[in-house]
């Protein structure tokens, strides 16, 4: 499913080069749920960006679904994300000014699908997450829990096989965090591969987490 082979990532910050990832090798199987643990700045987010094809590694090789995503040109890696990957961001990152339905279908807007197909897809996801009654409401006017469910529906709109979550419970109260974990559990049940980057201890003793990978200063420990 995901295969990282001696991956390094360096950033130039001013005159000095910062090494965000140092010789990371990792393999994740289909349907696995893996938690990436580490303090902020340990390279978790960088690793997710690389796996999603949002950035290129300085050296090493990354394969996702047997495609070498690290070698794909930008526009093709975007298509790859659109087809196979779902994203759940820290603080949800919904697009203000768009309503719930528009936010949910946002990943597929450029795909130019027939409107009825898209609306049907959106309806199914919104019903599953009980936000279909709020479809036309501006996301700014939703409660935190509702916003979270919109973010999840958006991540699922393209029926992804891989879901990447970046600090999903940061800035959430206990109730919302529990709700989120419930959703992740259901995703895991449906056979989706999950990769969760977090430093929230809530994730560390969950039954459905198959593996915890610890990152420290850009290395797996």
């Amino acid at each position: 499913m995901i295969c990282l082979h001696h991956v390094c990532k360096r950033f130039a910050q001013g005159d000095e080069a910062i090494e965000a990832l140092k010789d990371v090798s990792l393999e994740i199987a289909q349907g696995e749920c893996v938690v990436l643990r580490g303090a902020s700045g340990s390279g978790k987010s960088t690793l997710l960006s690389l796996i999603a094809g949002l950035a290129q590694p300085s050296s090493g090789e990354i394969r996702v679904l047997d495609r070498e995503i690290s070698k794909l040109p930008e526009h093709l890696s975007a298509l790859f994300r659109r087809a196979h990957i779902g994203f759940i961001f820290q603080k949800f990152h919904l697009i203000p000014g768009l309503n719930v339905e528009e936010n949910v279908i946002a990943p597929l807007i450029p795909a130019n699908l027939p409107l009825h197909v898209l609306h049907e897809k959106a309806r199914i996801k919104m019903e599953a997450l009980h936000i279909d009654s709020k479809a036309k409401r501006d996301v700014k006017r939703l409660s935190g829990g509702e916003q979270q469910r919109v973010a999840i529906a958006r991540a699922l709109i393209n029926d992804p096989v891989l879901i990447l979550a970046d600090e999903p419970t940061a800035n959430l109260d206990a109730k919302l965090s529990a709700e989120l974990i419930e959703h992740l559990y259901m995703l895991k049940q449906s056979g989706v591969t999950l990769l969760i980057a977090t430093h929230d201890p809530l994730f560390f003793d969950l039954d459905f987490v198959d593996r915890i990978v610890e990152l420290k200063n850009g290395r797996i420990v």
Partner: protein
Amino acid sequence: MLANINVLLLDYALGSLKRQGGKSIFIFLVLCLLIFLLASVLMIADAIKFELNTTLKTLPQITLQRFVAGRQTNVSVERVDTILALNGVERAIPRVWGYYYFKPAGVNFSIVGIDAYEEPYKKRLSELTRTFDLSTLEKEGGMIVGEGVQNVLRENYYSDFFNFITPKGERYPLKIAGVFHSDIALESNDLMLVPKQAAYTIFGMPPEEATDIVVHVSNPVEIPTIVQKITERYPDLRAITQDDLRISYQNIFDYKSGFFLSLFIVCVFAFFIVIYDKASGLSSEERREIGILKALGWRMSDIVHAKFYESFVMALSAFLTGFCAALFFVYVLQAPLLRSVFIGYSELKPPFRLPFSVDVKMIVLLFFLSVPVYIAATLIPSWKAASLDADEVMR
């Protein structure tokens, strides 16, 4: 961009224009103003050209003017017979006409002498005078004036006659025997038709002379040959053909609107820079939004596409608004201020309405002068926005 229109993407682009609020409105207004100015100027030029062309069609084929020391003077009537003898000349008519400055109203009237026994030198004139009996006009000392002229006279308390002052300083009253209506505003607003005799008196001209001679030729193709023959016989005569007038007017107007356009291009350049600057400055929300979208699977081309829709919608709506505003300004309000750029003689001539003349050509021209330029200014900023790093949202 070869792909068909993506309705949802268009919808997204419209939404994002709305969300940019003040910035969108500012650009929209500036763009509207530019297009409005440009459209107004082109419309005024076209309308005046149209009016003049209509007038030109009524002008004689050849007008002969005599020049002495580089100045136009009267021509001897005897020459008419010599010209009539030339092969191909159908008619040659001496004209008596000129301007009469009417001080109280500050306008110039055109006085044209007409003769009951002479065929009028142009069709329009015979149309205008058909309803009036010219021989009684001569006997009773009357004249026929345009509707506009009648109004000017009435404002100055001349309701049934008018006192001309001859060069000798004597009063010369003529009755207003009739009023004609003309579609051509320039004609209706300054033309006075008086008996030839009266015209001679008003201008103080000797009767064996005429202002100029107009010539009709049976075959228009022969005009250049006949002009050549006449000018060989009388080197002091200058011949003006209808074509000469038409070309020189077309040139003057193309030149004037061209001059304005050159100024306009300077404005466009400034505008280009303003747009470039405005479109380049992305707020942090916009940057974040683009980052999210790219992470969700939008390609650079999708973002450029959306931005293209944005600028196209913006340019097209500003174009339509500016164009309609110009239509209203020029044809309903009669283009206050701006029209004086084109009507140099407006101080001396009585006013006239701009005739309606808008065609597809002008719309296409205005479109090419505005929409592509605006889109060009947004090309590089759109690309810059699209190439923002998406992994910024992950940090």
